[in-house]
């Protein structure tokens, strides 16, 4: 039986995970029925409304569970992720 975890855990020791720069951000989110829905985020003292969530996925990193959201704000696309362990959000802008 094929095991996708076995085939695709390609994270390597000391190699940088993402080629894109990341930053910590403050996110306004709604938590309902066990689901997190980001509504807006604050970056450089400006608030960005999230108009659409394009994609969601999750990743386990040790005991931590990371919730990823690909979101649209205006004409720009961003990737936001929440660490369940630290309850902190980080953001990277998609090219």
């Amino acid at each position, binding site marked *: 039986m*094929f095991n*996708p975890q*076995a085939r695709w*855990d390609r*994270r390597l020791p000391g190699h940088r995970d993402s080629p894109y720069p990341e930053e910590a951000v403050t996110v306004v989110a709604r938590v309902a029925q066990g689901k997190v829905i980001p509504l807006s985020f604050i970056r450089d003292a400006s608030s960005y409304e999230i108009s659409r969530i394009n*994609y969601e996925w999750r*990743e386990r*990193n*040790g005991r931590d569970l990371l919730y990823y959201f690909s979101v649209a704000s205006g004409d720009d696309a961003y990737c936001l992720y929440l660490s369940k362990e630290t309850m902190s959000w980080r953001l990277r802008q998609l090219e």
Partner: protein
Amino acid sequence: MSKVILHVDMDAFFASIEQAVNPRLKNKPVIVGSRASRHSTVVAAASYEAKAFGVESGMSARSALRACPHAILVPADSAKYVYTSEEIHDLLKGYSPRVEMASIDEFYLDVTGFDAAALGREIREKIFRRFHITASVGIAPNRILAKMASKACKPDGLLLLAENEIPRFLETMPVERVPGIGPSIGAYLRSIGIRTCGQLKAIERNALVRRYGKIGLWLYDIARGRDVDVIGLVADPREQPKSVGHSYTLPRTVYRENVLNAWIRLLSEMVAARLRRYALEGKIVHLYVRQDDFANLLSRQKNFSVHTAEGEEIYGRCVTLLRRAQVVRLRARALGVSVSGIQKAQRNVLFEEDRKRRTITDTVDRVNGRFGEWTIYPAVLSLTRVRSFSEGDKSADHGPDQAALDRVTRQRTRAGNAFAERADRKTDCAADRDTE
């Protein structure tokens, strides 16, 4: 009642996910590279817009960008592909108790007794609604025909092959499109003038058996649309795997022994970590090294006397296999390490040295389990990050920490050699079957 098999094949899976994640990539030629660098990556997937320019999976990024210069290269992000694949697998389990995940983007369902076409339509709709990506569905009386049907209706299609339609479907089907017919059999069949399954059907059974033995029998059946493979029940997660392995295509050709050994150690550690996660250990170690022309393959395996789930031990056994192969000027481009001969892990240890090693391993596993994989790792693995290690670059600057890396390598190489000698002595004494 004849079987009804439904094959779900995701369309340009990785590229479609990247287009769903970033709508700016929609309707554009997208190439998902196995890594971020444009110079040392292969195409893991290409969107249909890129495929229109001749870009295919497995091509080097350079060739792909030459074929389609305006393509957008996106580095692969395995987490989102694995997550999506597992979610689709979970969704499909709701449709049949017999679901098989054939690869990260392919699934077989046994839907005998159901309205397969309606199920196929519903599955495609659900996948699109939830993930905004498309799937093609093939339905046929067996696996191979179902897979051929899904390929024939790509992208975003559904093809149901009824029993009476199979001869017509196969008549003009090129033999290379049959899953399982590789380049060598394909080339042979072409050389004797066989290009389609219809032409293959005209060949006598004995002629195929004489040329290919069991595979000849299989070819004879396939030409008639027959396949005996069955879909297993949803796998029991407690089921013990027969082997555990990892393989990796290196960022560039590796000439230096210490760097090659660091990559072997890395794969050994990955294999060992998975064995320990499943509470297993194995004793047969298999190493393969593919050289830079991708044709020359070094493949060795050996049945050792003692079971293990330790990365260092597996690495030592790989070094033994490599030394015994006595290859000069190895130009490694891809590597694989796997362990078989698997049994449940035995917790009893005889010697103090082994007990200490196990304590250290357990502690490292706990730290990595708590803070994420590779939080702690053997220092020698840092060599996998050395960039300039092609033959022409041997004298090149390897960065400020190269001296430290070289020191680590010297120590590790000495330790590795000593370990390999110990392993040699152990195996020479043991009367185990040598499968080399």
